[in-house]
């Protein structure tokens, strides 16, 4: 019998184990030796970002992030554990749907265009530290790029080999509202291994590890060949499960404290009809007086998928790559057509972003496009807050407690001819 098979069986999906904090390096080593590009959270440029991770020591031990509308600050706290921060500007999107990607390659041979296969030889990706909101965003992007009728080859190839080592949040930023979007803070799906730090801050000496897939089971079995992967009794498992549940309860119970950032939440009741019934709401013009159309919210959003496609040719013009680049509905070009611009104003562009994210997305993909990660609030240079905008629309759309125009949006008379 193969010891590895036996060991993997012992670490089957759904099982829980104990991994000493110092042994996280073994997990990284196992992933690297299996050919993975490993990325994880690290302090860089004044923020905690996802980048290549070789050493567990490079995780942001001793750092906490404080987030509010238009504000992100790191604070050194010697007591902070490696995953006590929340989410930074990066998400899995940056790696699975990178800002620039080659879709097609054409070569002109004797005057005739031939399509060439694009080598998909990049190493498989392993992400350490993904949160529940990141995994919801992953599921949302899967629904966009891997469909029954069309699958995006580049995304699908990366997604197929992706290893996710998730982390259950212990803390929530004021900008976090995954509890409202009902996708966090507990990690429940789309992970291979999930780490929970049962003890506060730097005090903990071990993670509770939940196995989420056969792939995760194999990884943990390999780690177990190198160090002790201990057992967890039912009480310890229950304690680990309580960590995100307790945080979720605290998030629901949060209230405004003087001098503290306002904790966010979003009322999603009937939100699709609320927003599509409010396309003429004056709030769009009001928010446009603040919005800079800078596109930051769409860049940091873990689900925004709009992109443009551009041609990149060499000087001969005979070798052409068709490159996909992130686009944003806040760019003037996004709605541009030959006859004019479909969304010529900041008000129309902000309305497009918010109504797509929270309403149109439901029609398109059967789910909200928002995971409650709060990145768009934090990274907005003027602190525009999606939860505040929806609340303002809700407050003045239905003064009598009834939907403004019934459940079906009611058409207004079409324009008269010129």
């Amino acid at each position, binding site marked *: 019998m193969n010891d590895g098979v036996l060991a993997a069986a012992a670490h089957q999906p759904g099982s829980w184990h104990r991994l000493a904090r110092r042994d996280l390096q073994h997990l990284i080593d196992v992933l690297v030796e299996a050919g993975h590009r490993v990325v994880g959270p690290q302090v860089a440029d004044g923020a905690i970002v996802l980048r290549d991770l070789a050493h567990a020591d490079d995780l942001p031990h001793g750092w906490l992030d404080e987030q509010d509308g238009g504000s992100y600050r790191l604070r050194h706290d010697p007591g902070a554990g490696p995953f006590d921060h929340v989410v930074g500007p990066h998400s899995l999107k940056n790696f699975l749907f990178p800002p620039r990607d080659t879709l097609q390659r054409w070569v002109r041979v004797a005057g005739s265009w031939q399509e060439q296969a694009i080598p998909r030889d990049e190493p498989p990706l392993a992400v350490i530290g993904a949160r529940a909101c990141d995994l919801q965003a992953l599921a949302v992007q899967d629904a966009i790029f891997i469909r029954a009728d069309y699958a995006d080859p580049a995304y699908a190839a990366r997604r197929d080999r992706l290893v996710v080592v998730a982390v259950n949040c212990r803390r929530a930023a004021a900008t976090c509202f995954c509890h409202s979007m009902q996708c966090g803070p507990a990690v429940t799906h789309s992970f291979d291994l999930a780490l929970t730090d049962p003890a506060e801050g730097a005090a903990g000496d071990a993670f509770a590890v939940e196995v989420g897939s056969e792939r995760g089971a194999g990884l943990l079995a390999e780690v177990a060949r190198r160090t002790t992967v201990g057992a967890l009794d039912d009480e310890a498992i229950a304690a680990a499960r309580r960590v995100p549940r307790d945080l979720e309860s605290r998030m629901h119970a949060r209230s405004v404290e003087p001098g503290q950032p306002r904790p966010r939440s979003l009322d999603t009741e009937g939100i699709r009809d609320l927003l599509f019934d409010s*396309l003429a709401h004056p709030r769009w013009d009001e928010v446009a007086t603040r919005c800079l159309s800078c596109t930051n919210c769409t860049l940091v959003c873990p689900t925004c998928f*709009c992109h443009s496609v551009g041609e990149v040719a060499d000087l001969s013009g005979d070798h052409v790559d068709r490159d996909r680049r992130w686009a944003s509905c806040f760019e003037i070009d996004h709605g541009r*057509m030959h006859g004019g611009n479909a969304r010529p104003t900041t008000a129309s562009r902000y309305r497009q972003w918010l109504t797509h994210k929270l309403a149109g997305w439901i*029609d398109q993909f059967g789910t909200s496009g928002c995971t409650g990660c709060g990145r768009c609030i934090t990274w907005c240079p003027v602190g525009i807050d999606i939860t505040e905008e929806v609340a303002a629309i809700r407050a003045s759309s239905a003064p009598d407690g009834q939907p403004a125009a019934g459940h*079906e949006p009611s*058409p*207004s008379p079409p324009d008269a001819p010129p």
Partner: protein
Amino acid sequence: MVVAAAAWEIPGVRTLDLAFRDPGQGFVFEPGQFTMLCLPGIGECAISIASDPGGGPSRAPRADAPTLLSHTFRAVGNVTHPLARLVAGDEVVVRGPFGSAWPLETLRNRDVVIAAGGLGLASMRSAILHLLRHRAAYRSVTILHGAKHPGELLFTADYQAWREAGATILTIVDRPADDRPATSAMSEACVAPVAWAAPAAVGCGGASWSGPVGFVPALLDTLDLSPRDTSILCCGPEPMMKAVVARASDRGIAAHDIWISMERNMACAAGFCGLCQFGPAFVCRDGPVFRHDRIAPFLAVAGL
């Protein structure tokens, strides 16, 4: 695909008849669908198929599957200008067909009114050819076509054949002569040399236009309609389509009997790029042909 023939319809509006490089690559499409035409190194754009799905783009419909695809477009942008410069023998990379189609099968035994504003007629030519090839299946086929001035009326050389095949064709112009300074002089200069003949069926100079002056909805008013039996298929600039819809509603035609073809910029045509969103719809996948009642609330809002 390879350009089999290229011709100017009117100044700045080009028709490319495309043949499959390998004849085995032919595909079936439905009227109303579009393709993405790509010139590697230059770019790609969405263009409706203007030929008969049951035949070649030649004026004589054929019964077999199409071996040629015809596209009629105005040279206005970074991709359409170079496309318009193509001549027979040049190559175009084609993806498609994409999008929804005109519901021609469900319109059998009905009065079908085609309302086309300007270049909108190009995206309806495929449907017109299909309707006329199956003319006996439809009670009537009426084509309403409006243009800025007589010289902008499209496919005028086809009108006689279409009439003989059983269509009623009514045309209208915004103004009887092209008496305004060309605002698109730039675009027309870029596609020079322009070789085109003045359409014979209508006068091009102001003095010779004897038809009605106004907009397409006014043509609708002149029709003796049986509202319950009438379906309207409409393509043109959005203000024109809104006006047609309003006038059709006034005439008692139900919103679910009005179909419109929307236009948005697209980079992928497969629901990935997000550029063509219109309310909750992707124009590339859920459209371009929409039943009016399904998008009416969004069509009524400016800037979506």
